[in-house]
């Protein structure tokens, strides 16, 4: 099982601060597509994705028990 930490508006869209899903074996790109189609998170274009406290490229493969964080850029300042 993978724990997915949600930040900013993603918390509201999911109605929760975290998700628990088994997404091991998928690449980060596949994860994006999967979450967009299977959850209420909406478009993940432009959302930064980290695995185990490290930003990951689209090709990175997710392992079992990896903790994933979805960080949306916000523009305020």
């Amino acid at each position, binding site marked *: 099982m993978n724990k997915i930490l949600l930040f*900013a*508006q993603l918390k509201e869209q999911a109605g929760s601060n975290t998700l628990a899903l088994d997404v091991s074996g998928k690449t980060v790109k596949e994860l994006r597509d999967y979450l967009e189609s299977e959850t209420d998170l909406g*478009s993940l274009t*432009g959302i930064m994705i980290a695995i185990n406290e*490290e930003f990951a490229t689209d090709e990175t493969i997710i392992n079992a028990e990896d903790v994933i*964080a979805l960080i949306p*850029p*916000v*523009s305020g*300042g």
Partner: protein
Amino acid sequence: MDRYSRQILFKKIGESGQKEIGKKHAIILGVGALGTHTSETLARAGIRKLQIIDRDYVEMSNLQRQHLFTEEDAIKKWPKAEAAKNRLQQINSDVEIEAIVAQADEVLLERIIEDVDLLIDGTDNFETRFLMNDIAHKYDIPYIFGSCVGTFGMAFTIIPGETPCLQCLLKKLPLQGQTCDTVGIIAPTVQMVTAHQSAEALKILSGNRKAVRKTFVSFDLWENEYVSLKADALKSKDCLTCGEDCTFPFLQADSNMKVAVLCGRDTVQIRPVDGVPILLEQLADRWRSAGFEVGGNPFLLSIVKEGTRVVFFKDGRALVHGTKNPDEARKIYHSLIG
């Protein structure tokens, strides 16, 4: 007792670090929530020179989170850069402060970038951030990114040639994310971002490059969350800003009037690219004699036409309030200024 004694007592800075800070020059781009905090900290810390750039003026709704400003600044609609400068000079008269009331575009940044040691992000939009990111890499200057909304914020220190850049992280200009004008913000969120930005600034300015944080920080103060993320894997050789064949795409200027809808503010900004200065007093006289109600101060004019308030700045720029329609705004603009 020396005014910087407590900073000198901190031994990672010390006498020699304090001397370094006293030689340095930073640009703070945007003196809204983030920029008022970082500029106050660096002025108090004894930096040699600050250039603070902001196109906007102080409003009452700024006071909840934007340090340096008072009710009087809001009542007078003082330009933010000028109001910030006034206060910063009361705080530290030894710091050279230049207030620049203008849109920070590639022309302006190319003109003032010489001799700059550090760029600090105080802006509220990614268009300007990508511009800073390009300028930072073209001139090899550290750039400290920060942004926030609600109780969520992020900060990252970009060192050209070492870390990934903002384009590496975000790939392209983000689609509109959340803004302070759509989901609000509380002041501690700003302070959490600027505590990180200012700490990194003091490391860089005092000559402690090795202490610079290598991770991207993101937090939510309401949810009591804080993460610190390694970013190295995102550094891209193909990046147009920091890669092998960089072209600095955000420094390629348009040549037309720029019209921008300001996110969530029900306001359109119109700005001529060459920025020929307009003569405010002359315009005010003309409008008054045409029967308009005109307000303002030495830095800007405020006029109401057909229920729409328009504010003009000396560089020809205008904010057209009460509309999100660029064409409508253009029309009012042209009807007033020719």
